């Protein structure tokens, strides 16, 4: 039997009604080992205006570089209290902020992937969610990362968070324009 996937639709302006129950701003509960980091930023539209009705979701490996998922069969430890999922709505200014631990490197096609978070972006006006990634600054593995290498050099910076004080990084979702964030099609 062969079927076609159902059509995606926008979340619309009232997404919070259905999705806020699972808002997770702290992805790594206390006791989960790893280097703690806070990531903050804004979602900006084509006019540079903050998108106040967006939501991002994060999926990541633990500090050892293992995903809490049966298809990750690496012999690395799992942590019972770490799912690796975050869901964060934007505020009135289009800003978001969440805390997690820096993931370890994970296997990739051809080369190990540099530590990264995968991100889904949802909002009114997006008929299908967008997929992007957050990489970490000052990470030598970024140079060899198989996905970053696919991105034109001038645009790679949109995927790499910037240091913003102790334990805090900044990363923005810019939907249009000169600094438009790189989005992936898998």
């Amino acid at each position, binding site marked *: 039997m062969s079927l076609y996937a159902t059509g995606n639709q*926008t979340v619309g302006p009232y997404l919070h009604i259905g999705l806020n129950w699972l808002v997770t701003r702290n992805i790594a509960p206390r006791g989960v080992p790893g280097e703690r980091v806070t990531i903050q930023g804004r979602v900006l539209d084509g006019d540079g205006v903050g998108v106040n009705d967006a939501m991002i979701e994060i999926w990541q490996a633990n500090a050892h570089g293992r995903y809490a998922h049966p*298809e990750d069969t690496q012999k690395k430890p799992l942590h019972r209290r770490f799912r690796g999922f975050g869901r964060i709505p934007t505020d009135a200014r289009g800003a978001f902020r969440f805390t997690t631990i820096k993931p370890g490197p994970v296997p990739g096609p051809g080369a190990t992937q540099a530590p990264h978070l995968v991100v889904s972006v949802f909002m009114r006006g997006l008929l299908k969610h967008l997929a992007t990634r957050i990489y970490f600054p000052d990470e030598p593995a970024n140079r060899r990362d198989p996905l970053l290498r696919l991105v034109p050099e001038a645009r790679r910076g949109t995927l790499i968070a910037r240091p913003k004080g102790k334990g805090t990084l900044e990363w923005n979702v810019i*939907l249009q324009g000169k600094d438009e964030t790189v989005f992936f099609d898998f």
Partner: protein
Amino acid sequence: MKTLRGYRRYHPGTQPDYDYPPYRSTEKRHPTQPLVIAPQTLSELTGPLFGWDDVKPTDHDLTRQHKGTPIGERIIVSGRVLDENGRPVPNTLVEIWQANAAGRYPHQADQHDAPLDPNFSGAGRTLTDAEGRYRFVTIRPGEYPWRNHYNAWRPAHLHFSLFGQAFLTRMITQMYFPGDPLLTYDPMFTCIADENARQRLISTFDWETTIPEHALGYRFDIVLRGRDATPMENRK
């Protein structure tokens, strides 16, 4: 690591474009650069999994979240979550949200002059069973105006959010009702180019799940991306 098996790409015409001028909000919110086509890696072939620790068994019934009974026509919305190979997607989280019977959302951004219902919040969630089945009890949502174009009205709909078993299978969609005259004029519905794909967003009346003297049943099956036949390393 054992061999990873990737997911099929979406069939042409079955998915909306990001830039769709009839839906005005896409204008400033669609990417203008082409998406970067990337290989599916362990990061995308895995994804968050949820269970009954996350969801209460009663979360599927939107008519019993308050002291009183919500106003409106009680309905049963059920169906199966399948992949493109026709296999059920078991134990996956399904979230829904919707307007009340008068076409109003309890949300500060909704200024439509229609009554709120103190007995209806409009959100539910559940997990599919081993055969991919889900079931919600709710009330039929009302149509409502929006400001996309002159005299614009949204057809009655339920929003659905699904995860499947990978980051790649994440899906947000909307379910519509059969025979709704507003569908033809609705850019959310028409944004899907393929006529058959569009029709699959419309639920069907389901006599089997209709409860005598209690509630009409509507069936809505959802298909998530399915696995490719060929393991990734064998693909050119």
